[in-house]
């Protein structure tokens, strides 16, 4: 046990102390906030520096009125279109909106002249303002009071509530659950591959440089293998925790700097300022999402995540170690990667095709129970809330699977690390597994 600890410590420290680890750990989480911050900064800078843009409106119908905003002001006149164009040409106006006499049932001929290509947002804004006005006008003409109509406009919002057998009600929202399942599942998938490869390369390094001969004369091959797997797993966990802390604190700082608390709030404010309308009908939806987020049992989710994160890593880590032991160089490892890649890919595809879309289907159930796929697939179900027995079964099977994979890998590893220069194939591996 002492010796496993020494191996774990060496594997851990020799990686964590590397400059490349420090760089990857510190820079990766900076990338997203930096990109986000840069965009926000540019956008806000633009908004600040832009002078108020004045748009000349000539409306031959005398019925349209477009509200001015912080960026755009509208001035109305009764000249003809040539006068308006001249104003743009001379640079006195940012743009010129010309509304000829139009047929309300088929409005056409409305033109915007600008000295540069107007933004999509701006055109949309103009269009929706005009559209609203035309609709109101037409309703009025057919004898319907727009006020009355808007009073009748109804927004339907179905709220999904999960009812478990003890009677506890939990709000759920498929979007939130989807996003959580999506990210946690992919994270486990990436983690298994990245750190599994590190195990494999570590084993190959020790084998090809023959350090392993000295090592196994001091401790059991199994101790060496487990020490390596656990040590590298700890590196991954450290990196992951640092990322989580950095991402959340940096995001917090960046958001704080720009006077925002949450992205949603930012979105709402933008929508408000631009549309200046029916935003109130959307509030319940966002409030709903917030409520769902609040209702998710994050501690339970985090524990589930860590369990599958580690379980999946340990299960596949043992296989990676066995492959490393069976070959002499990384280039030879490719032939044995298939049995690892296939179930991981099945789990990955299954997560998108089945689990996230219908977490309770049969396929989803089996994907989340079988140990080879459960670490990834179960995360797709986890955020939706899983029946206790499903979780218990899946977790126990994962533990059994991990013990089994380590046992098999240990047999291959024990012999493989001492065999050099022989072409190893699946038949040889099978012989090693069977040998006493």
């Amino acid at each position, binding site marked *: 046990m002492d010796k496993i600890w020494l191996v774990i410590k*060496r594997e851990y420290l020799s990686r964590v102390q590397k400059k490349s680890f420090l760089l990857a750990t510190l820079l990766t989480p900076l990338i997203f906030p930096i990109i986000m911050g840069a965009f926000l900064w540019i956008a806000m800078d633009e908004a600040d520096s832009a002078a108020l843009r004045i748009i000349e409106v000539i409306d031959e119908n005398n019925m349209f009125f477009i509200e001015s905003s912080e960026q755009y002001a509208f001035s109305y006149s009764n000249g003809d279109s040539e006068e308006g164009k001249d104003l743009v040409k001379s640079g006195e106006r940012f743009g010129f909106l010309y509304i000829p006499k139009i047929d309300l049932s088929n409005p056409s001929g409305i033109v915007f002249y600008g000295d540069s290509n107007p933004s999509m947002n701006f055109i949309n804004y103009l269009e929706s303002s005009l559209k609203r006005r035309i609709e109101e006008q037409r309703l009025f003409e057919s004898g319907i009071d727009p006020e009355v109509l808007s009073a009748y406009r109804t927004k339907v919002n179905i709220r999904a509530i999960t009812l478990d057998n003890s009677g506890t009600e939990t709000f759920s929202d498929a979007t939130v659950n989807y996003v959580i399942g999506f990210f946690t599942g992919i994270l486990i998938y990436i983690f298994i591959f990245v750190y599994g490869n590190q195990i494999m390369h570590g084993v190959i390094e020790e084998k090809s440089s*023959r350090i392993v001969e*000295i090592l196994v*004369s001091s*401790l059991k091959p199994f101790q060496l293998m487990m020490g390596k797997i656990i040590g590298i797993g700890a590196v991954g966990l450290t990196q992951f925790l640092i990322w989580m802390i950095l991402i959340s604190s940096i995001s917090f700082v960046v958001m704080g700097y720009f006077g925002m608390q949450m992205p949603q709030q930012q979105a709402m404010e933008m929508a408000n300022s631009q549309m200046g309308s029916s935003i109130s009908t959307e509030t319940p939806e966002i409030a709903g999402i917030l409520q769902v987020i609040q209702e998710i049992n994050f501690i339970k989710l985090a524990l589930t995540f860590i369990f599958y994160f580690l379980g999946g890593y340990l299960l596949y880590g043992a296989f990676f170690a066995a492959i490393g032991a069976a070959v002499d160089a990384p280039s030879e490892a490719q032939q044995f990667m298939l049995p690892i890649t296939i179930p991981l890919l099945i789990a990955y595809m299954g997560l998108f095709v089945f689990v996230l879309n219908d977490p309770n289907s049969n396929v989803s159930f089996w994907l989340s129970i079988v140990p080879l796929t459960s670490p990834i697939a179960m995360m797709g179900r986890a955020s939706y809330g899983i029946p206790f027995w499903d979780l218990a079964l899946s977790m126990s099977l994962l533990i059994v699977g991990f013990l089994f994979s380590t046992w098999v890998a240990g047999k291959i590893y024990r012999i493989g690390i001492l065999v050099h220069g022989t072409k190893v194939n699946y038949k040889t591996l099978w012989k090693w597994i069977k040998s006493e």
Partner: protein
Amino acid sequence: MEILSIQNLNKSYGPSKALTDIDLSIPEGVIYGLLGPNGAGKTTLIRIINQIIDADSGSIFFKGEQLNPKHIAQIGYLPEERGLYKKMKVWDQLIYFARLKGLSASEAKEKVHFWLDKLDIKNWKDKRIDDLSKGMAQKVQFISTIIHEPRLLILDEPFSGFDPVNADLIKNEILELKQKGITLILSTHRMESVELLCDYVAMINQSKKILDGKLTAIKQQFRPNEYEVQLRCEDNRLPEQWQATWDNQIATFTIKLNGGTANESLAHLMQFGEVIGFSERMPSMEELFIQQVNASSNG
């Protein structure tokens, strides 16, 4: 007292036998040569003694006790293919190996200091193995083998890859370790180093032991009964069959005793002139090795 006693050891890999009924007895405090051609089973035997692999049958006793994991701390092993972590610093590496052999953290530090000092590589302790010359790395490797002061040291081809200067350094270290009462098993093809260092030898060929015992006794056993003679005589009147070579009226040749004693031969030789040299020719290990291996392979 025997430090290692091996009885009836058998090991096979599938259908091929690696060791067949090996019996060996290694006295404490000697240098024991383990000889044999490639693929004879030497490495397998060494791995079994190191408890890297298990024998199929037979037993090994370390100082009279059945060999078990607690003996790891008393055995040192320098494999033929040397290996160190290339990216690890000399200091960290040695501490790691020392700790794996069961030394406490403070003991390990003390010993590493001592050996870095002794082999004069103290200034290199913060270098990575990558940055060392091959000779330097070999020294580090050697230290890692003896850092825990084993009672039994197994060196597999200890001189391969060393330049003459470093080989000499290692040779002196080996002799010094012997002085301290440490038993050494030397597995090698280099017969001249066997002659020079070993007290005992065992020869293994095709998984079987073909010869073992004290080096001097083996040489006695296989002496060809030949004597090298140097004779000063006036003219060329020696019998043809002696095939003497002449230099300044001194004839040098080899005679083989046939039944008689050395003294009788000497008396006979005196008749031809002044005997200035008369010594028994002992077989070299090289000869013995080739002769024995061929004999056992053909028999």
